[in-house]
């Protein structure tokens, strides 16, 4: 079996070993846990390195591990069209900081996906020029995909704006 994606991890470890905390390739998904403050460096390397060439940021989401510290895990999925390879990058963000650098300058696809993560989890993306809610409305209270947001919670009624 071809070692799927782990070449990418090897290159990442070579170039930015101080930013990478842990790697694994369970179930064939190459994954690297990185230091959240280095996300832009990692993404730039993934995009620009001739051995990596991850042109696409296909997905960006967040997981709320409410009982763990740091609480939030921002998950990025990159895809290389040239090499037909995927890699997953994860970065932990503490609940009191709740902030990570935006990738919008490197990958414009991060625009809406970062807005969605802000909307649903309340994680701020530093450097995003227009961090509005994406799916919900301005007056919505709280961030519904957090584990401490009860499913049954009602929102106050919002009247017309003008």
């Amino acid at each position: 079996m071809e070692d799927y994606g782990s070449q990418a991890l090897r290159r990442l470890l070579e170039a930015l070993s101080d930013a990478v905390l842990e790697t694994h390739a369970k179930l064939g998904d190459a994954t690297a846990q990185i230091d959240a403050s280095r996300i832009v460096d990692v993404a730039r390397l993934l995009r620009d390195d001739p051995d990596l060439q991850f042109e696409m940021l296909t997905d960006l989401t967040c997981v709320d591990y409410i009982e763990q510290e740091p609480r939030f895990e921002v998950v990025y999925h990159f895809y290389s069209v040239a090499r037909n390879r995927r890699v997953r990058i994860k970065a932990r963000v503490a609940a009191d900081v709740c902030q990570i650098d935006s990738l919008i300058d490197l990958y414009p696809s991060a625009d809406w996906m970062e807005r969605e993560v802000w909307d649903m989890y309340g994680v701020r993306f530093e450097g995003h020029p227009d961090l509005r809610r994406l799916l919900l409305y301005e007056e919505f209270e709280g961030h519904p995909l957090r584990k401490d947001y009860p499913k049954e919670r009602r929102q106050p009624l919002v009247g017309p704006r003008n």
Partner: protein
Amino acid sequence: MAENADRAHEALAEDFERDLHTERQILNMGPSHPATHGTVKFLIELDGENIADLDIQVGYLHRGFEKECESGTWYQAIPYTDRLNYNSAILANIGFCMAVEKMLELETPIRCQWQRVLASELSRIGDHLTRCGAACLELQAMTPFLYGIEARELIWDLQEVLCGARVTSNYVRIGGVKHSMPDTFPAQCRDHIAKIRELLKDFDGIVTGNRIFVDRLKGTGVISREECLRYAVTGPILRSAGEPLDIRKQEPYLTYDEIDFDIPIGEVGDNYDRYLVCVEEMHQSLRIVEQCLEKLQELGPGPVDTMDPRVRWPAKGRVFNQMEEMIQQFKSVTEGPRVPIGEVYFAIESANGELGFYLVSDGSAVPYKVRCRPPSLINLAPMPGMLRGALLADLIPTFDFINMVGGECDR
């Protein structure tokens, strides 16, 4: 006298050609506009008749898909996936179930895989028919829309035979499909394929060379290959820009590596190319369906569900007579399968592009995290760039061929 008249005439002509500066105007379009088949609001800044800037506001159909999935069992999430893209529900079923199977490291029986391919290609045709048909309708052409819908009706008839439901199918199970196809299905399917080909021919005849249709589509909503990659755009939009990226070929899942089919690509990446790519994809899907039918008939009857006790429900006859099976049935229904601790990302090629599921399990019977990577949402993001400077009228076909589906975009 004559001189004066000439001068007056000249001044008039100058006035006529002068570029009149008009104030920019904000136009609200939507959320329920008759010319868009999707619930979305466009906030358009108009300079005359041209779009100066565009803000797309999505989320009107948000119903908390992910939150809802994270509070039920793994099985209970499947009907919700139906409601993502209601044009091709089976594709979302398959995407979710295969992601769970990847987590369970579960192998599905060969017949199940071929049936899934068959069902997903039928869904893809249905989705493309809706896209092309509705686009015609919104460009004021009723007849081709009816051809498209008639063909989609045939697809839905086939889905009804296959799984009992027409739109929200709930056909796929973790480790299998609901049941094997009826004996009458292959003959009916071949009959319908012939009818669909006829309808596609009619559709092609009335639309593809139609002067109005071509004028409104050619050169509008252009996006380059590089821009597509920067915005992570996938599916027919990326392929129409000239990049032959299709997960069915790049990372073949199910039995796509055994099937003979081609990936159509476009050249310029405008709406017309997108239309042509979609039409050709429908023909390719029909080819795939035929190959699936042949293969399934060659395989003959057999199991379509895995025997793995973690997800399999015991046979009904035994449930009523054996204690152990009774208990297992009870556990399966009330608790559902437990999925080992871990995380997984699995993507399939849906009709709109890469439909991915990122799942996290904490080892219990309830998913810890269900993330759907919605191609509709991500393909919609570069739309302002595609339309800046274009006419307001270009927004309609561009939006149609992006094929944003509210259910999937807003989740």
